[in-house]
């Protein structure tokens, strides 16, 4: 199959899969809604669909797409297949700041309207995310070059530092605060509301509108930043743009769903094996398939032990990690026969 044909087919398949998954996520769950009821829903069923399942599906799809998209961008930018928002400590940084904001809100900002409170958490998470990425970037930059090994090491260190911060906040939190804080570290889209979805959508709008068009410059950066510059790309400017877009989107996502690992690592890697390293193809497909993966994981999370719900992070890791390891083993075998 020609690569361009393969790409088109994959993209279409992604759209179809997304549609199927959205329908499935509306229908399945603790209360199953039979097909014949869809034409005239009972009020309770309508409420379940409109206020619970649909925002939840939208959030899962959006966040999954964001995580995979930003994963591709960071991997291309850092020329390292291991880079992802969670491994670089960006999600932990965001979680720490979101936790701080939550504590502040419960303690002395309680007069705020709930909608404001939500966007403040998102803004806090964004600031956390941006600060972490800037700090990381500053650490790993030596005489105009970004040292990727150092970057990943610093990411690990920052993750544990932010973990300690979050741990301390957990320690001083009261019961209500504790419940909200523990939420992220599990990762869940269970509390999704339309206002949260809207908030994430607004914050990730730059990422969704800009990043899919960065394919060529990310391709060029695979050759090295200097080479990209020689091909006429304003590398520094674009790097900053990508980092800001990624921080905005990841920050907002993390604020409401918590730390969901592996999507940003597995989806780009799978697509790279399937479509090749061309970012012009990787970026749009990873947005869609990342969404599909998280949506599917959420369906599994809430049906497998219904009416109980598994934490989403547990599901993505337990599906993603073994399959990922299998693929690594296979490609390693193919490289040294």
């Amino acid at each position, binding site marked *: 199959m020609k690569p361009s044909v393969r790409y088109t087919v994959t993209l279409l398949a992604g759209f179809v899969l997304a549609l199927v998954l959205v329908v499935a996520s509306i229908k399945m769950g603790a209360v199953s809604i039979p097909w014949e009821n869809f034409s005239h829903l009972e009020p309770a069923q309508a409420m379940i669909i409109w206020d619970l399942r649909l925002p939840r599906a939208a959030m899962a799809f959006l966040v999954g797409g964001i995580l995979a998209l930003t994963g591709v961008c960071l991997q291309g930018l850092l020329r390292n297949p291991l880079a992802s928002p969670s491994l670089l400590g960006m999600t932990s940084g965001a979680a720490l700041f979101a936790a701080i904001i939550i504590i502040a809100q419960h303690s002395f900002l309680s007069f705020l309207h709930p909608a404001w409170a939500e966007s403040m958490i998102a803004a806090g998470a964004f600031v956390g995310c941006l600060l972490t990425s800037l700090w990381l970037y500053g650490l790993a930059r030596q005489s105009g070059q970004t040292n990727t090994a150092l970057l990943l090491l610093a990411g690990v260190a920052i993750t544990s530092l932010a973990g300690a911060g979050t741990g301390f906040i957990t320690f001083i939190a009261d019961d209500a605060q504790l419940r909200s804080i523990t939420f992220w570290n599990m990762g869940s889209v269970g509390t999704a509301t339309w206002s949260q979805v809207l908030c994430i959508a607004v914050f990730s709008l730059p990422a969704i509108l800009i990043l899919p068009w960065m394919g060529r410059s990310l391709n060029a950066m*695979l050759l*090295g930043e200097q080479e990209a510059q*020689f091909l006429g790309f*304003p590398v520094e400017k674009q790097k900053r743009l990508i980092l800001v877009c990624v921080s905005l989107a990841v920050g907002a996502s993390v604020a409401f769903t918590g730390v969901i690992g592996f999507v940003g690592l597995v989806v780009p890697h799978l697509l790279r094996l399937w479509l090749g*390293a061309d970012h012009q193809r990787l970026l749009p497909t990873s947005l869609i398939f990342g969404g599909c993966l998280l949506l599917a994981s959420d369906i599994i999370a809430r049906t497998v032990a219904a009416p109980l719900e598994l934490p989403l992070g547990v599901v993505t890791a337990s599906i993603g990690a073994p399959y990922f390891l299998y693929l690594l083993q296979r490609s390693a075998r193919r490289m040294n026969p």
Partner: protein
Amino acid sequence: MIRWNNVSYVKNSRFLLQDISVEMPAGQLTVVLGPNGAGKSTFLRLCSKEMLPTSGMIELHGKDLQNWSTQDMALFRGVLSQSHPVAFPMDVAELVLMGRYPHKKRAALDHHDQHIVQEALAECSVKHLNDRSTQFLSGGELQRVQTARILAQIWEDHPQHPRILLLDEPTASLDPGYQHLCLLKAKKLAEQGVCVIAILHDLNLAARYADHIVFLKEGRLAGAGPMRDMMRESILRDVFSVEIHTVHDPRLEHPLIFTLGPQHQQLANEPKLRSL
């Protein structure tokens, strides 16, 4: 054309290049020679605007290099760096196609670009690697593929400016046959009016293909001029601090250069070679 006016480059309060004024004309192959640590790579990096001079000015086509935008320069200037591996494996044709990116801002790359890519691959004799993934290439093959990418980038004449080609040790990982092929190609480009600047270590390759030589030593200009005037025993001995012997071969227009190591006393007793 690239002209240096009293250029110095300082790093960590040490002169890497000091007070250099030199001119690299279009339509000539200029080879930069010098011992290790002479500042050759720094020289090329300043030419490519990768770094800016601490003092002095570099002119590109009569305009201060600082005032050129990366986008504009990408249209007529190719830079072959010492190759580092490609981060993710990709097809060779895809990699070479990147050379056409600067010429199509938003528009899709078309058949014309594909055609140029194929021509460039053929030019570097790597056409058979077309669908191969970069992860399975040898060092020399990758070097040739990267060269093809640079050629694809400056394949066509720019309407206003002569093209520029900067090569940092283009022959480093090539076998002798391809070393000649590579420099022959560079020479042919120079004859078409391209300003080619290359760093080389092989004195004989330099003597054979260069039109113009720039010698650097300890960050200073140790001489610059036409190849015939520069490739002389006395100058080479001064620059490289090693005993040099040149020989004339009737089949070649240029001298053959031998470097005699520490034991050159014994070698000097060899049968007489006619020196130039």
